């Protein structure tokens, strides 16, 4: 049984007299104990998808099940087994860090004492012990974020949803959170996370869904995705920028896509089908043309290449998490 299952989800918003298809037939399946990464440019529909799956908004059509429970008709049961942290920290400014987590525990009905004990554990885990008894009002963005993430772990959730969990965290906290996610998965938790960081998806996710304009446009492991957009890249470093034209011509003949040249004119790259043999052939021709090289090599595409090729956008971080936009779901 897949732990997360979405089928043909659609959600349309009306903004300024225009229909925005936030979800346009999104489907996905996540087996138990896996980490799935949702990757997509700004406005792709990642947050909308997470909100549907965490019962925050109702889709216009389509179905979704989490832990075998229907998010529309069994929302209450879904909430009991799910932990989630939204794109923007949702914490009570006037409570302390500990009180925030205690409140969440009480609302999961752990009982006041267990909730308090759990809050302390999580505060320690997220390295907020010194700040934990101060009102969140005075916390930095990253500290708030950590309280919010801790809120997702108050129960040991069967399914965990994290919307851009590491945006706003410093690199050390980010790597540490990766560790927490991995240990949860080792304990059997299923995780769906969205991210703008390709490195993060590469590092954490067993499988990646690339979404754009409310739809899944590619799916697979990071290796599969890389293979899908062309096996290899040939990269050259020229000694003399005067040779750029000649080198480009030769690469274009061997490549399966456009040749990219950097600003200096001395670094060239082209996607190719079979790396080694094509590189050998290209090198022979370059030598014949008298093009001198500093360096030549084959590299596997990165997820950045995948992202660019598939969506035509550059991956970029979301705006400041402390500045959420205010749009009303019910008003649309």
């Amino acid at each position: 049984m897949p732990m997360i299952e979405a089928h043909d989800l659609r959600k349309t918003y009306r903004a300024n007299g225009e229909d925005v298809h936030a979800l346009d037939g999104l489907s996905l399946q996540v087996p138990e104990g896996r980490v799935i990464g949702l990757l997509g440019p700004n406005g792709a529909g990642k947050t909308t998808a997470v909100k549907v799956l965490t019962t925050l908004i109702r889709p216009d059509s389509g179905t979704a099940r989490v832990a075998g429970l229907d998010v529309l008709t069994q929302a209450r049961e879904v909430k009991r087994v799910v932990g989630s942290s939204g794109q923007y920290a949702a914490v009570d400014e006037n409570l302390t860090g500990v009180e925030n987590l205690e409140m969440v525990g009480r609302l999961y009905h752990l009982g006041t004492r267990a909730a308090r004990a759990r809050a302390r554990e999580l505060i320690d885990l997220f390295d907020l012990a010194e700040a934990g008894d101060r009102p969140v009002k005075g916390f930095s963005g990253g500290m708030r974020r950590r309280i919010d993430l801790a809120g997702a772990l108050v129960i040991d959730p069967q399914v965990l949803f994290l919307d851009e969990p590491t945006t706003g965290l410093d690199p050390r906290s980010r790597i540490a959170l990766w560790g927490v996610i991995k240990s949860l998965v080792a304990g059997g938790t299923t995780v769906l996370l969205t991210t703008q960081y390709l490195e993060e998806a590469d590092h954490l996710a067993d499988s990646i869904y690339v979404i754009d304009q409310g739809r899944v446009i590619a799916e697979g492991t990071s290796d599969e995705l890389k293979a899908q957009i062309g096996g290899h890249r040939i990269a050259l470093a020229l000694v003399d920028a005067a040779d750029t034209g000649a080198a480009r011509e030769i690469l274009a003949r061997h490549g399966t896509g456009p040749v990219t040249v950097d600003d200096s004119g001395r670094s060239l790259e082209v996607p190719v089908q079979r790396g080694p043999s094509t590189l050998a052939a290209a090198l022979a021709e370059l030598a014949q043309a008298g093009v001198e090289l500093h360096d030549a090599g084959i590299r596997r595409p990165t997820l950045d290449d995948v992202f660019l090729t598939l969506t035509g956008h550059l991956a970029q971080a979301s705006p400041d998490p402390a500045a959420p936009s205010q749009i009303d779901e019910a008003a649309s």
Partner: protein
Amino acid sequence: MTTQLARHTDTAHLPHGHRTGGPRWSLPSDAWTITWRNLLKFKRSPDYVVFAVLQPIMFVLLFSQVYGGSIRVEGTNYTDYLMAGIFGQTVLFGATFSGYGMAQDLKDGIIDRFRTLPMHPAAVLLGRTAADLALNTVSMIIMILTGLVVGWRFHEGILAFLGGVALLLLFSYAFSWVMALIGMMVRTPEVINNASFMILFPLTFISNAFVQAQNLPGPLQAFANWNPVSALVQAARSLFGNLGQSPVSDALPMRYPIAMVLIGSVLMLAIFVPLAVTRYTRTSRR
């Protein structure tokens, strides 16, 4: 989090948590948790203390000391006449906190957190309105004590007096739900604040709260007689025995103020509790 979390990276062990939330899904306990959280907020924000404690004292003192000698009411003194008006105005303003609070919570995103938790859908609103009722009750007690100090007396016995207090609080509680719904629709706490002021101030001044309605010019007098604030104040005033011999208008709300306030409160609750809960279940930040 670094060192702590990093350790868990190696050991792959989180502190033991509960696999699921507890089975109970209880409105009273969820609502109590939210009330607790709202009361903590009152405790930590000096603005609320100012509003709930100092402002009522100031109003009672100002009105009774400044106007006490200059406004005459047949058959009673102005301080007696005035108190119900100040009570009414204060608790109505207190009720607007529910709108402010809901808007603020939406803005902070904490409502999104609540909505992902397995709580009763009415709990947040119930906790909100309950905390605001508690604050209003505190204001009420302070005003009563201040009033007694400046010479206000009730004349119909303790039960009628308590009835009057209960009626004021009931009406303001029902009005809290109206404000909570508005708060979720407007979503901007500052707008709620300013709009409440703009609407409630004229409403209390064009009523019998501080002056006798028959002293108002014609059209305002008609408005005042049908103004719900007047009915509320009139009801409390009659239960306190503070009416004096001021002539009573034959507008329906003035003839049966207690019944009108009771009916109005029940109607407000019957309409706005379901509306607000429904609205809550589909509201979300961003």
